[in-house]
């Protein structure tokens, strides 16, 4: 009996609450939507831009990678495009060079800006002037900067070889040499791009509490120990994120080989995956389906790193 009397009374208060909720929800939603209308209005432009110019092309690329268009007729071909680009004579070289460039760019293009930032952070005078100096190459259009390097890399009378000659050192064929092609691309790329990374590192360094350095100094730590035990741990998250962004950016290598090495270099020593995509799309009988397959492959590789980036990002908050 107790159960029958208790049960209705236990449920009783719940019903009016639910009814009240149902009765008021549309009004509240409408009011909330109205309140946020301005926000939605501002958002819609950005969403449309992303939808049209980023998300739709990505979906389209994925679909196209399983299709073949010939004489205006598009058919589903399964994995054929992937198999075909896999057999492209430059496929292996393109991946090898892209990975080699990425690794070397990590050593040079990732570590160097951090070291420069640490050094700049140590300067008490002319810090602003030095920052501008480091950032200037970023303001230069990449093509212009690379054309400067193209002249500097001239194996005949380029600036670099002239300097080496003046120092009585052996000269190099630079982008015309098998061994020096990728390092030459990395040097140019680092010079062009490191300004932004330096500024980001500098901003991170300036957030490191000064008392930590003072404490370290009191404990007798020298410059290197201060960097290792204070700077690196305090900027660990920025360093991790920049590391991943660097990988994602450098794997999309294109303009450096395109301008400095005529695209693929001597016997494909400068061929990159993105240049191979470009070749398939615009040179090899407009093989857009093959280009899409290559694009999907690269996207999958980069997605791994982007996933890591996303995973790391909230931790920074």
């Amino acid at each position, binding site marked *: 009996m107790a159960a029958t009397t208790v049960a209705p009374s236990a449920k009783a208060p719940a019903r009016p609450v639910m009814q009240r909720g149902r009765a008021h929800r549309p009004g509240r939603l409408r009011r909330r939507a*109205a309140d946020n*209308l*301005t926000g*939605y*209005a*501002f958002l*819609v*432009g950005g969403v*449309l831009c992303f939808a*049209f110019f980023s998300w739709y092309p990505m979906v389209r690329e994925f679909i196209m990678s399983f299709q073949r*268009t*010939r*004489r*205006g*007729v598009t058919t589903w071909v399964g994995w054929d495009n992937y198999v*075909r680009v896999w*057999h*492209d*004579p*430059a496929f292996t070289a393109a991946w090898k060079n892209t990975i080699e460039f990425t690794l070397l760019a990590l050593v040079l293009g990732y570590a160097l800006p951090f070291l420069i930032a640490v050094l700049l952070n140590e300067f008490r005078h002319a810090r602003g002037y030095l920052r501008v100096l480091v950032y200037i190459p970023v303001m230069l259009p990449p093509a212009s900067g690379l054309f400067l390097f193209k002249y500097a890399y*001239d*194996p*005949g*009378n380029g600036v670099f070889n002239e300097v080496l000659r003046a120092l009585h050192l052996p000269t190099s*064929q630079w*982008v*015309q*040499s098998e061994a020096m092609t990728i390092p030459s691309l990395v040097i140019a790329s680092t010079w062009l791009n490191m300004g932004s990374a330096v500024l980001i590192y500098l901003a991170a360094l300036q957030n490191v509490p000064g008392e930590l350095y003072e404490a370290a100094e009191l404990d007798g730590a020298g410059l290197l120990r201060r960097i290792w035990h204070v700077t690196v741990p305090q900027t660990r998250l920025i360093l991790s994120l920049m590391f991943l962004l660097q990988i994602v950016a450098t794997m999309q290598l294109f303009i450096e080989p395109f301008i400095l*090495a*005529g*695209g*693929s*270099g*001597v*016997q*494909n020593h400068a061929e990159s995956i993105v240049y191979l995509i*470009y*070749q*398939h*799309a*615009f*040179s*090899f*009988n*407009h*093989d*857009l389906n*093959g280009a899409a397959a290559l694009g999907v492959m690269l996207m999958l590789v980069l997605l791994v790193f982007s996933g890591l980036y996303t995973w790391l990002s909230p931790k920074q908050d």
Partner: protein
Amino acid sequence: MSARHYRKVAAVALATTVGLGLAACGSSSGNAAASAGGKTTIVVDCAPLKTDNGGKTLQQWNADVAAFEKIHPDVVIRSISVGAQCDNPPDFTARLQGGTQADVFYGYMTDLNQVLDADQAADITKYVNKDTVPNWDQITDVAKSAFTEDGKIYAVPFYSYTMGLVYNKKLFTQAGLDPSKPPATWQDVRTAAKAIAALGNGIVGYQDYSAQNTGGWHFTAELYARGGADVSADGKTATVNTPQAQAVLQTLHDMRFVDNSMGAKQLLGWADLLNNAGGGKVGMYIGAPDTVQSIVNQFKGSYADWAMAPMPGDNGPAQATLGGGNGYFFKKGDTPAQIKAGLEWLSFEELTPGQGQFNYVAQKAEGLPVGLPLSQLFTVGSATGKQIDTLAQQNTNLTLTDYAPYVNNPVKAIIEPPNAQAIYAVLDGPMGAVLTQPNANITQLLSDANTKIQTILSQGS
């Protein structure tokens, strides 16, 4: 602004943004206006740029349009030209994929395949006749076949070239060579190159490409000259591992490293070589007559310095040379009236002696060179060809004898192989290797290239 009013503005902005976005996705052209007011309108691309020859070339084009519309009052020509759209293949591919090309659009002879794959060309076979294109029968078969598939015509050729040896008369003279006796064989080229390179001051005797697929393009031309080919006649077998191909690479390698007549800087693309030539640093190169125009117009060279000879051969005249050219396609969906109007316009502007591209009187008055053997569009000895030659001789402002060896010794033209760009990309490799590596293993390079080309042929693209 009150909050209510502000929201209203925001809502209008939202609706406008969505509307604009949808409009941007919609079709931007159609044929509704093609025959408005009883007149047929056609959009023709690749009109001269405002910057070409100080705007004079565009002025002449516009005068031609006006003259044509006077003769054909039922036709309206709308001509467009945006940047380097006619010289930049990626732009062309992008326009084809987007379906945004003009009603009558410019393309290379090698573009037929991609135009048909994109399903963007109209079949104009039944419209090409004596009335619309009176001298159609006099156009060379090579040019016509480049725009024909399965008996169907998709474009009207208006320019056709063959490659030859372009040389700098001034450097020849400085090097003690006789510019009226250009090299006829590759051995002659090598000897002359050595003499020119001895001038020093960064001057190279002979220069060649090895980047951005242009290396493979020139390798093919030089292979044709020695009687070889990249692929078999049926297009199914790679044929670059041959003594002829070996000879092509060996000559270049020896000029680069034994004679030191090609300079240290290699991996050159199209503009690099012509830029060097414009600067007076190149004695000879392989090219079509229009490259002389580019040297002058884009790279500040001088017509007075340049001359042309036929493609050098192995032990005598070349067995063949690479040919190519351009034409105008008709967009799929063009109305019959538009196709007819387009054909009449092309006949007027591009195919009639004394008019349009052959209006040498006007070109001379504009200060343009007259007498360059730019086009080998019409068959040798045809009435149209003869008329054009006569007009050129009457109005020339160049020394025609500079081009006489090239004009008077025509070499059989062969057009590009199937999958040309993919094959050229492979052949850039051996070209780059023999021009940058003193110990390049030519036999191995050609063997590897042959295997790669065979892969391309069997895979297709």
